[in-house]
């Protein structure tokens, strides 16, 4: 037992967490005693300190810092790779430095939070099925949609993309792992902590955090305790994504295989490169905005207190300077996934590869110049509106280039309409719709009317569900064989797509209409005239929710008992498919050499990478019959 409590793992984590709670209690009381504050035992101050610090104790306990701690003391540190690779399912619950294990950890944890956040959306829709109060009160309702959005944004879309990229990106560029494997593990472990913190806010006295995911000051400053949970959780989620982004950037810049020039990188790598730039530059802004809220809340600072000379609109400027780029953080990796899926399933090179890469960079740059389009009605100076409208609308141009290039990639291809491909083309159409409603919102005179209505809710879900979510499904189905070594069930995958596609539209399309007609967002009661549409929306959303259970079943059942996947079931050229499914523990026996572009489909004899030295698994390994579509249904 003593050994268990001193070596990294759950026992020690638990012990340290308890120590952390006691320590922060002492610290809070001690500090208050020193500063002569009454009462000495203030649970509010204790909870604030505990939220900030106990996670560090947990992380230390589970073993995120052991290596660095040895190193800092000048002890001998060896990489014995004991914590590398997973040999049983238990290894997924330990600190592991293998990017493939971390990738899976990321994906599973973020899907867990997707289901929790989705379930909250179901409760929101149940409440909204009829006007009047059904079964939750105002506090719970506001908490439900706030945490729904926070979980889906900070604990699902952003990290699941990081997870997918964690798994495939090092393989794609021919690297044995990420540049900083231990930092990678730390980034992962901060994530569940942030998520649990957000959920725990439901238990906070005074109710959960309820100021919307945007948490505008001064409302969030005056909220009960629950808001502190959000404020702190965002810091951990943010720190996690900064660390991952930094890791991706260093990995991409310094660890590409020989021959892998920037313009031979698959577009997924480009997409994550761009996204990581956004994360590194923008995320500190949300950290700052929440720090300021925390200081106002906990220590009586005056950042957002107009009576003390504070500036209320400053919160929004700082917040959106992150959160607008954040919407591209939630979309660009998806663009990368779509490029991979389309090229492989259409059997054609990506049309206009260079422009695809440049338009990603253009979106990164432009993304920093448009934040105030969320503030057209905020009461900021009027003159800011027109420049922001123009920069915002300009983003449609690089995005349009991407959409059109994808369509051109489909043109004359040999389109295999299987599950990943269905999601990909579904994405192209739905995202175009969401993007167009975005351009409408950019038009100030219209936005003045529809801002803060269900039209915005419609836009959000067309870009985040029809956009990000569709790409995530495409990616998960596409790399499922690589990650698990099993094939998913094609028929269930298609059923999942069609149900989702139809009921997604039935759920969110009518929101455009009721929004323009005048239904504000973030209300749990509404005028009688919107009753019919809301009922239709709610009913459709339940089917939409249930359709995700098909996905869940398919994933679990196929992982456990699906047919074995060959190394390269899609006959793809990129490197991750040239190794076994799942890949060996260190990815390669020898680093591959890149000799051509990643998407040279249709070019006779084209190869993207060759393995020198070691035995090369041929694209379609011997043993698998030459049929490129192995039996997937049974």
């Amino acid at each position, binding site marked *: 037992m003593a050994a268990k409590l001193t070596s990294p793992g759950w026992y020690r984590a638990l012990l340290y967490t308890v120590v952390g709670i006691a320590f922060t209690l002492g610290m809070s009381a001690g500090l208050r005693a020193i500063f002569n504050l009454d009462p000495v035992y203030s649970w509010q101050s204790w909870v604030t300190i505990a939220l900030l610090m106990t996670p560090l104790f947990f992380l230390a306990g589970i073993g995120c810092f052991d290596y660095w701690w040895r190193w800092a003391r000048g002890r001998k540190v060896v990489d014995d790779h004991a914590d590398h690779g997973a040999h049983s399912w238990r290894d997924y619950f330990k600190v592991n430095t293998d990017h493939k294990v971390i990738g899976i950890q990321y994906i599973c944890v973020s899907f867990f939070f997707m289901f929790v956040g989705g379930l909250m959306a179901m409760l929101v829709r149940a409440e909204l099925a009829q006007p009047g109060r059904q079964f939750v009160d105002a506090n719970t309702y506001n908490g439900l949609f706030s945490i729904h959005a926070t979980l889906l944004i900070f604990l699902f879309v952003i990290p699941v993309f990081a997870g997918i990229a964690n798994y495939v990106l090092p393989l794609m560029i021919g690297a044995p792992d990420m540049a900083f494997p231990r930092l990678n593990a730390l980034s992962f472990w901060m994530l569940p902590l942030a998520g649990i913190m957000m959920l725990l806010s439901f238990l906070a006295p005074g109710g959960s955090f309820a100021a919307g995911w945007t948490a505008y000051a001064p409302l969030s400053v005056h909220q009960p305790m629950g808001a502190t949970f959000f404020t702190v959780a965002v810091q951990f989620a943010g720190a996690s994504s900064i660390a991952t982004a930094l890791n991706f950037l260093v990995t991409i810049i310094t660890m590409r295989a020989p021959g892998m020039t920037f313009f031979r990188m698959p577009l997924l790598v480009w997409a994550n490169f761009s996204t990581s730039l956004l994360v590194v530059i923008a995320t500190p802004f949300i950290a700052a905005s929440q720090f300021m809220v925390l200081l106002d809340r906990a220590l009586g600072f005056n950042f957002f207190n107009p009576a003390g000379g504070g500036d209320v609109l400053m919160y929004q400027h700082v917040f959106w300077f992150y959160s607008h780029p954040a919407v591209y953080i939630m979309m660009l990796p998806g663009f990368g996934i779509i490029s991979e899926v389309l090229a492989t399933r259409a059997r054609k090179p990506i049309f206009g590869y260079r422009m695809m890469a440049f338009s990603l960079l253009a979106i990164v740059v432009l993304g920093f110049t448009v934040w105030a389009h969320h503030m057209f009605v905020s009461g900021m100076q009027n003159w800011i509106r027109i420049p922001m409208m123009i920069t915002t609308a300009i983003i449609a141009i690089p995005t349009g280039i991407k959409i059109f290039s994808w369509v051109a990639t*489909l043109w004359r291809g040999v389109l295999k309409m299987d599950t990943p491909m269905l999601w990909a083309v579904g994405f192209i159409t739905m995202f175009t719709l969401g993007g167009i409603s975005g351009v409408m919102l950019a038009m100030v005179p*219209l936005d003045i009317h529809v801002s803060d209505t269900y039209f915005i809710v419609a836009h959000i879900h067309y870009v985040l569900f029809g956009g990000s979510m569709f790409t995530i499904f495409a990616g998960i189905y596409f790399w499922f064989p690589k990650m698990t070594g099993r094939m998913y069930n094609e028929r269930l995958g298609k059923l999942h797509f069609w149900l989702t596609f139809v009921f997604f539209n039935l759920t969110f399309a009518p929101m455009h209409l009721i929004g323009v007609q005048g239904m504000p967002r973030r209300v749990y009661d509404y005028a009688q005239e919107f009753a019919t549409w809301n009922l239709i929306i709610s009913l459709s959303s339940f089917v939409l929710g249930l359709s995700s259970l098909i996905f869940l079943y398919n994933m679990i059942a196929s992982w456990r008992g699906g047919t074995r996947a060959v190394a390269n079931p899609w006959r793809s050229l990129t490197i991750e498919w040239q190794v076994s499914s799942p890949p060996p523990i260190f990815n390669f026996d020898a680093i591959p050499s890149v000799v051509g572009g990643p998407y040279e489909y249709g070019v006779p004899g084209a190869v993207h990478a060759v393995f020198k030295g070691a035995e090369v698994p041929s694209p379609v390994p011997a043993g698998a019959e030459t049929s490129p*579509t192995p039996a997937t249904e049974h």
Partner: protein
Amino acid sequence: MGEDTRRGPVTGRMWVTLIAIGLVASAIGIALGLSLRWFPAQGSTIAHKIDTFWDVLIIVSVPIFVGVVTMVLFSIWRWRQRPGEELLDGPPIHGNTKLEVVWTTIPTIIIAGLCAYATVLLLDIQNAPAKGTRVINVTGQQFAWTFSTVENGKKIQTNELYVPVGEPINFKVRSLDVIHDFWVPEWRLKVDAVPGITTGYALTPSKVGNYQVVCAELCGLGHAFMRANVHVLPAAKYAAWVQKVTTPVGAAAVGAASNGSASVDTIGKQLFVAGNPSTGTLACGTCHTMKAAGTSSATGPNLDKFVAQDPASAIREMIVNPNKEIATGFAKGVMPVNIGKTLNKQQIDALTAYIYKSVHRR
């Protein structure tokens, strides 16, 4: 070889069909988009401009969306992989500069056009109001609106908004606590009420009728109920209203009701159904059902039931200190906590007595 022609280049005739399908689908889409009743009534002089702009946006957007969908569906229909083609690859087309220039230029032109239109329209609607325009001060607070203006040299303060039709009005919007948003959907304009600064806009109501101010910025638990009635009156009626509220004996003004001439009962009822606009006390009836007062909202507890057993002193305590005890099933923080401060002692006494009497009558 049917197979080959299918994979071959798209023939001229096919292009014609494809474009025709796109055009027809766009036409149907536009027709559908324009025929829906999107907006509420056009209640201000700028409303029709926004609505026209929306129509233009529909006309521009539908073809873009239809275009993308048509090309995608056509590709799938024509080039999807059929049995026997499992090992086939598409032609290695890497790009086409001319095409890329085209699809960069066209959106640029569309965007430029839309931005120009929007700019002109925006400058038009945010034009500075003419001098001497009627000014109405709008103040938001959790969860009520107060409107004040000066007529005939007298200050009028109300919880409902009264405006004459056809006259430009300059709204000056403020907030006492958190951010709210002043929006009348029929007028098409909204702006946040931000603590610490004054925001606002000017417009001219063009249609007589009753509308609602909708608070459009999340401001706390009562956000969904932060509504106020808007009465757009013909000039004559407006003048009559002004006349009524500026005459001291008028019972409509609650401030006047408390000057001693009215009975305790009337003051209590007044406060219950109308609040005290001059200090920003919300009307109890906005949230509470009470038969005697004829109110029927379910935001707060039904007072006929919840306080039927309580002595007057307890009721008084609940009004002054609403968060001390929370009625089961309701949330803390909805019921305004400022009632004890915004009403004077007599008013609170009158209100308490009135509620006590009303709920014990049965």
